[in-house]
């Protein structure tokens, strides 16, 4: 398949970029330090979770957008060859997502192994990988839809800001104004609309620290129980990466390059 052939070279190119190496190194240093300083590994997973929830979406969305813009002329050249736009689109996506995944697995995985693997740290890596796919998909979508590089990066940064920071504020505001009503179902829907929240909840459900779960997490646990809550959250994350990918591909197919 042509997708795999192109993917090979995209992977080769992205894996050697300095930004991916720096990203892996940064994760490695953070997680090594956290595992080293904290004697209780579940506590270090908790601190690591906060870093992963902030850093993974940021790096994925920024690096993804920039890389797609920088490959523009090269993409044009490849599309003048006998290959479909869909093959190219998915090989770019997979190349980016898999390289960042590799960096993540290396950066957190090696410290986790040296300090004794726990199920929760593996689970944290899984959630990180899913978030990588989600935010690379969003990045490519925003790079495809906006023609101007500066505007595309702006859109990406704004989306990151919205999902990681603004969203919590909005939820609090909604809760505050509608505190007289039963909000459980609404809250569940609201948290399903934010991939970062979904990632957070699914790790916290595994850690069983309900005090730290926040309102949405508690609702998830109450309604779905630990296991099915986790599975639902993960499935929603997969959906979150497929949706922008589908829209991006649809737009890219008819785009003037």
């Amino acid at each position, binding site marked *: 398949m042509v997708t795999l052939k192109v993917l090979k070279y995209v992977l080769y*190119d992205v894996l050697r970029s300095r930004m991916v190496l720096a990203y892996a190194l940064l994760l490695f240093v953070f997680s090594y330090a956290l595992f080293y300083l904290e004697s209780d590994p579940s506590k270090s997973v908790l601190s690591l979770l906060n870093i992963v929830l902030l850093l993974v979406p940021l790096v994925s969305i920024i690096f993804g957008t920039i890389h797609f813009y920088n490959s523009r*002329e090269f993409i044009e050249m490849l599309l003048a060859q006998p290959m479909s736009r869909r093959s190219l689109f998915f090989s770019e996506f997979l190349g980016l997502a898999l390289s960042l995944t590799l960096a993540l697995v290396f950066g957190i995985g090696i410290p986790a192994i040296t300090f004794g693997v726990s199920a929760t740290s593996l689970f944290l890596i899984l959630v990180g990988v899913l978030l990588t796919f989600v935010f690379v998909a969003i990045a490519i979508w925003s790079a495809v839809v906006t023609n101007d590089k500066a505007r595309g990066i702006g859109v990406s940064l704004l989306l990151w800001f919205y999902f990681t920071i603004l969203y919590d504020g909005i939820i609090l505001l909604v809760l505050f104004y509608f505190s007289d009503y039963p909000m459980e179902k609404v809250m569940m829907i609201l948290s399903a609309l934010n991939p970062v929240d979904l990632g957070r909840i699914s790790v916290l459900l595994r850690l069983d620290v309900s005090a730290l779960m926040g309102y949405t997490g508690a609702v998830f646990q109450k309604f779905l129980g630990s296991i099915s809550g986790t599975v639902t959250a993960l499935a929603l994350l997969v959906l979150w990466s497929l949706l922008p990918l589908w829209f991006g591909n649809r737009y890219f197919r008819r785009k003037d390059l």
Partner: protein
Amino acid sequence: MLRLSHLSKSFGRLQVVKDLSVDFGRSQVVCLIGPNGSGKTTMIKCILGLVIPDEGKIVVNSHQVGRSWNYRRAIGYMPQINRFPDNIKVKQLFEMIKDIRQHRGDYDEELYRAFNIELIGEKRMSTLSGGMRQKVNAALAFLFNPAILILDEPTAGLDPAASEILKEKILSCRTEGKLIVITTHNMSDVEELADQVMLLHDGTLKFYGQLSELKTKTGSNKLSRALIEAYSRTADTVIK
């Protein structure tokens, strides 16, 4: 071999190509000329399927463009690329395009050898100078023996020796029966290569025919004079 009929394309409110119809046959070099922003690149991108026309159709070797991507097997394209992926080596770029095209016949490695690309195989694309990149692009376009070659300003940035090699290659491809479409601003290239000249202005076809015809019709013997004359005529006159 390559036919455009009633091709139109606009970007937003700006109409870049207006009702363009033209027919190219085999064994000829067509020079596509016109001032900046006259729609040359858009026309080429429409042929390659990179830009999707609003109206009209393009037929390449009896395959209609837009239905499938298979017709591009018959096309070699030499773009003007300034930015390649940072970490891809020259050698890998060739492997990659070979991988994608799955070419069955012989490779045409004449330019590859003439430009000594073997020697820079280990260099990364991003470290090459503009002229070297042009050489790589040219070698890639000719590598798969395509029946149609589309060259976007092929001699821009090439040193005189390389430019001469490329022009000879273009002429020998013409004798092999290929169609070569070139955009250029270099008038001596047009004088040396063109069988047919195609003049675009504001997205409309102003002239399509032999070079000598253009000269007599504009009443000027030097091509550059003839072109200035042709460019300066108002947008709605067609040179007849």
